[in-house]
């Protein structure tokens, strides 16, 4: 089940997009999201879709894989659509009692729906083409200047790194403990909600203990390897912007100019 969720997953590849500096991609995604909110009609979305299509094309991530990512958020999209459709005042098209669909409502529903879909696809492209660990490095670097005002950029990034490292380990551990308790006759699947919640105790307690043990061991191992927080630390893979990133930045500026022009001219 968990494997089916492609949202936020990395799709391995060697494309031009994959090779961009993570910071470029993070900023680019951010710019794209802001641009989506600048758009005020469907012509603007056309520009956005064209831009997105270009990026997807270059990245060679299959469209079907990207669309699968929409599945888990489908309900949210539907909800947005329905709310907008019924809750906007204006010229009535159809009506059943207090439920009224207006022309403006329908327009809004589609407008918001498209915006949400583009928003999700745009941001999922970031995670699809960037290894989580690179993403972490990028976030740490971009947040760097905020350290002065007390944002724990390094600590946040380290937490993400460790989480990425140990999620598979904990999943494996969960599977093991679950099987061990099932071998002792535990039943995780039947009964009402309360009974099922109760049946999780033999799973959760050993799992917590495991997680604590890992945390303890890891803290000690990190200390032994001279870890002392983010101060005075170097990085092996210091990030460097390349020609590619300047090209991408140029493309981004062009995109924003197009969106703004469309907004003001048409």
């Amino acid at each position, binding site marked *: 089940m968990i494997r089916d969720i492609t949202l936020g997953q990395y799709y391995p590849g060697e494309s031009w997009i994959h090779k961009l500096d993570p910071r470029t991609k993070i900023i680019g995604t951010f710019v794209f999201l802001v641009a989506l909110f600048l758009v005020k009609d469907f012509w603007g979305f056309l520009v956005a879709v064209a831009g997105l299509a270009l990026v997807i094309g270059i990245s060679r991530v299959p469209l079907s894989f990207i669309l699968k990512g929409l599945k888990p958020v489908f309900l949210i999209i539907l909800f947005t659509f329905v709310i907008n459709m019924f809750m906007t005042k204006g010229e009535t098209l159809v009506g059943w009692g207090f439920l009224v669909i207006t022309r403006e409502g329908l327009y809004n529903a589609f407008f918001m729906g498209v915006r949400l879909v583009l928003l999700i696809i745009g941001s999922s492209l970031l995670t699809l083409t960037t290894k989580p660990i690179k993403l972490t490095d990028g976030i740490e670097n971009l947040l760097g200047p905020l350290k002065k005002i007390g944002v724990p950029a390094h600590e946040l990034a380290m937490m993400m790194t460790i989480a990425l490292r140990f999620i598979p380990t904990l999943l494996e*551990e969960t599977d*093991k*403990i679950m*099987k*061990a*308790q*099932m*071998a*002792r*006759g*535990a*039943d995780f699947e039947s009964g009402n909600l309360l009974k099922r919640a109760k049946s999780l*105790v*033999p799973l959760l*307690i*050993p799992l917590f*203990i*495991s997680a604590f043990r890992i945390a303890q061991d890891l803290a000690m191992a990190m200390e032994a390897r001279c870890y002392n927080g983010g101060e005075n630390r170097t990085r092996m893979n210091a990030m460097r912007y390349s020609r590619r990133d300047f090209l991408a930045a140029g493309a981004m500026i062009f995109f924003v100019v197009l969106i703004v022009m469309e907004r003001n001219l048409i």
Partner: protein
Amino acid sequence: MSIEVKNITHIYSEGMPYESVALQEVSFSVADGEFVGIIGHTGSGKSTLVQHLNGLLKPKSGAIFIGDVDITGEKVLMRDIRRRIGLVFQYPEYQLFEETVHKDVAFGPINLGLSEEETDHRVREAIGLVGLDYQELAERSPFELSGGQKRRIAIAGVIAMKPEVLILDEPTAGLDPRAHKEILDMIRSIHSTEKNITLLISHNMNDIAALSDKVLVMERGQVAMMGTPREVFSKGAELKKMGLALPPAAEFMDRMKEKGFPAETSVLTKEEALEALLFQLKDNREQVVQ
């Protein structure tokens, strides 16, 4: 009661790009009361195999008869299988979760739907069988026990279900020599008291040779050999090809033979090795004494 495994095949992540065949046409049988050692490399399919015997995994094809019930059948009650086949996983102490030792050991029997009285009786018996003192430990938290004690309590949790087949997956992993020996003695005494079928997965060839009536060798998801320890461990060359070791005494005699020493090959223990050496060297001894 006997076990009859017939042509079971298991494939992990079937249909996915990373699918892998974990078991392929595995067949073997175990007679009532037998002690079978299972050896093989990490990844050879040992753990997958024993999880099938307990119904935690279902084979893609094939059948597993416990007595005369095919446990791969649709209508079989899982609870029934779990009652009859006890499986102790690697590092079983990681599954302890209750406030007291008594409650933790009682978890299995209660899941089987046994009465309070019967559960209580079994818990006492199981803790005794693993060589611990019920009075002393019953009301203590399992988390404050020593490593070796924790492991025994975890094993008691399975034994309290009175399984007809007891499967232990590397029960001595990570223990120091004393705790190792204690667990081994415990397994031996449980087997002789309960007279059940016992399957022991281990990398320690000495333990396998000392305890097993038969040895099952797994290699790449298939049964590579099955026979008495003497039969299996006399095939040193084949085992080494699979990356498996011999019991140290057998290994030693093998080396002697390679160097041209006319030694026996069916040696398993150090006592037998010593006897064989003394036999061959008896002329020398006389010379030395003279």
